[in-house]
């Protein structure tokens, strides 16, 4: 059988179909946020007429709020019902349906029950035209100004592949990136809107606690303070560290090496991170309840050097604490608070102000989640490359660099690394299971690690 797709007859038929689709479509591309990535716009250019033969008035309906930060512009809708099928087949909640039939049909939600599910933002992504819009993105920029950075989400242990759309060092939106190894086609709203919370209360310079408030320091002064305090309070042997499972493998690995050089004891644990219930949807998409996105990576790299938790440090006398703040998701447990109280000096690596930084004595500003570079391992063991979408703000430094420089100041050992890929290479060399997870083999889709002892 031969199927011809480009004959005159076929093209004519397509033109007719498009004419019907454009009967009520406003063609307000200059105003529409979908312009530039709109299928209907592309087909209009290819098959459309410059003028409509439809002499009646176009149907006009008001915009409607669908809930969950999604707005529908009924005029632009072409009734493909992708959003309806998404809520029923992927999420399983089925809030949306097609109301009325024929000329009067429109997308609507069942009486009084708006969109209410943690995947709702995806309907704006899958909408082929500009009918479904995200409130926080609408009228903010045009898509062709955005530079798209393929990266991974660290908000939970699912580790979804994402595309970060940024321009002028500002993130405008985050959309899902197809990756059958990680998330499939969708991302959750927590990850989609995560960038908003990292835009405020950011830390830009090293801070040391003074009698009143905080004093700014240069990086050299900050490292010097840390070294002096460690010598003063029990020496290297008494230093304890809590690594954050939200940071890339690179900084966790370097922290592990640093702590190993300081003492043979189990002086390293993971900081408690907020836990929720796992959410699994009809399609199998899973929002992991573990909000430490790189817990698997931290466990793989640190292995049996990990102590049980903050509680296990309380048995001995605690010296200086090295803490990594889990990007504001640190769970301030009683044990953690007691540990910080017991310690004479707490050094915290953080990208923004959080309850943990308030308790700290020295705060070192590091790159935020979308400024980081490195690898993360999700709960299934998929290693993905985190690509920075933003430049690091002000004097803040990459997380791996801060740990490496601390190592230099404390022990005088530890390699000098020029960029994150150097540390990745070191991990490939050191950890057998990660030997294949090199920067170039990871690509955009990542690679599974196997056989971790």
């Amino acid at each position, binding site marked *: 059988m031969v199927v011809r797709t480009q004959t005159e007859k076929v093209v004519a038929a397509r033109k007719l179909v498009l004419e019907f689709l454009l009967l009520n479509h406003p063609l*307000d*591309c*200059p*105003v529409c946020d979908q*312009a530039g990535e709109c299928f209907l716009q592309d087909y209009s250019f290819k098959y459309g007429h410059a003028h409509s033969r439809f002499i009646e008035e176009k149907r006009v309906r008001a915009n409607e709020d669908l809930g969950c930060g999604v707005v529908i512009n009924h005029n632009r809708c072409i009734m493909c019902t992708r959003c309806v099928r998404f809520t029923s087949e992927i999420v399983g909640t089925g809030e949306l349906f097609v109301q009325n039939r024929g000329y009067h049909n429109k997308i609507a939600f069942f009486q009084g029950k708006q969109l209410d599910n943690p995947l709702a933002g995806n309907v704006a992504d899958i909408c082929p035209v500009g009918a479904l819009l995200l409130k926080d993105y*609408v*009228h*903010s*920029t*045009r898509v062709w100004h955005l530079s798209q950075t393929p990266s991974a989400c660290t908000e939970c242990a699912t580790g979804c592949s994402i595309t970060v759309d940024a321009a002028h060092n500002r993130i405008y939106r985050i959309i899902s990136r197809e990756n059958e190894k990680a998330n499939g086609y969708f991302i959750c709203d927590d990850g989609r809107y995560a960038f908003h919370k990292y835009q405020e209360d950011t830390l830009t310079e090293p801070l040391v606690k003074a009698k009143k408030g905080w004093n700014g320091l240069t990086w050299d002064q900050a490292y010097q303070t840390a070294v002096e305090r460690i010598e003063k309070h029990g020496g290297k042997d008494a230093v304890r560290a809590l690594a954050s499972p939200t940071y890339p493998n690179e900084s966790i690995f370097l922290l592990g090496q640093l702590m190993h050089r300081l003492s043979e004891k189990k002086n390293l644990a993971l900081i408690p991170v907020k836990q929720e219930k796992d959410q699994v949807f009809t399609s199998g998409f899973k929002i992991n309840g573990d909000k430490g996105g790189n817990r698997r990576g931290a466990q793989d790299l640190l292995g049996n050097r990990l102590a049980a938790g903050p509680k296990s440090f309380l048995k001995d006398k605690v010296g200086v604490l090295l803490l990594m703040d889990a990007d504001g998701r640190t769970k301030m447990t009683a044990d953690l608070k007691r540990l910080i109280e017991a310690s004479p000096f707490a050094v915290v690596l953080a990208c923004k102000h959080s309850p943990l930084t308030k308790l700290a004595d020295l705060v070192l500003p590091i790159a935020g989640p979308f400024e980081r570079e490195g690898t993360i391992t999700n709960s299934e063991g998929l290693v993905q490359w985190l690509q920075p979408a933003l430049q690091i703000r002000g004097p803040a430094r990459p997380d791996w660099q801060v740990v490496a420089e601390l190592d230099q100041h404390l022990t005088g050992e530890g390699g000098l690394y020029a960029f994150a890929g150097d540390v990745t290479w070191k991990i490939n060399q050191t950890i057998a299971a990660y030997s294949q997870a090199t920067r170039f083999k990871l690509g955009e889709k990542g690679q599974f690690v196997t056989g971790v002892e």
Partner: protein
Amino acid sequence: MATVVKTYEPRFWDRIYIVAIAQGLLITLGRIFRRKDTIRYPEERHVPPQGYRGLHRLNKHEDGRIKCVACEMCQTACPAHCIDIEPSAAPWEEGEERYPVKFDIDLLRCIYCGFCEIACPKDAIELTEIYDFSAYARDDLVIDMDGLLKVYDLTKDGNVYERHNRGEIIEVPITR
């Protein structure tokens, strides 16, 4: 190849300069009775030909709303990257749902090619005939949205220089 330089030794009549001065004054005398090539700027101003591309303006609807919908086509088309637009949802109920809250044009960077007015789907940006805008600082030659709308008010009733020469308006442009 060597260049031969011709030397000229002035003679007596050349040295007293009277002949040369008289010749120059004769030319001046001749010019007095001819049509003047100069104009008495700024009292009188040159009227550029139709299609001249000068200072930009942002057009308004009849009810005073800005025509621009901040689609950023002009910014995209601009080869000099001199336009900076910040879109926002429009405050009015009727009409377009999007409008610019910031519309800056760097007049020093602009090359006055007119691509922006060709790209504009709403006929909102246009280049006017105004050519004499100047300032003491570079920053003053970045015109903002208010300035561009003022240019529209000034130029909507016909060529400003013709009207100026007729004595209808005295003030010509405005930058920030």
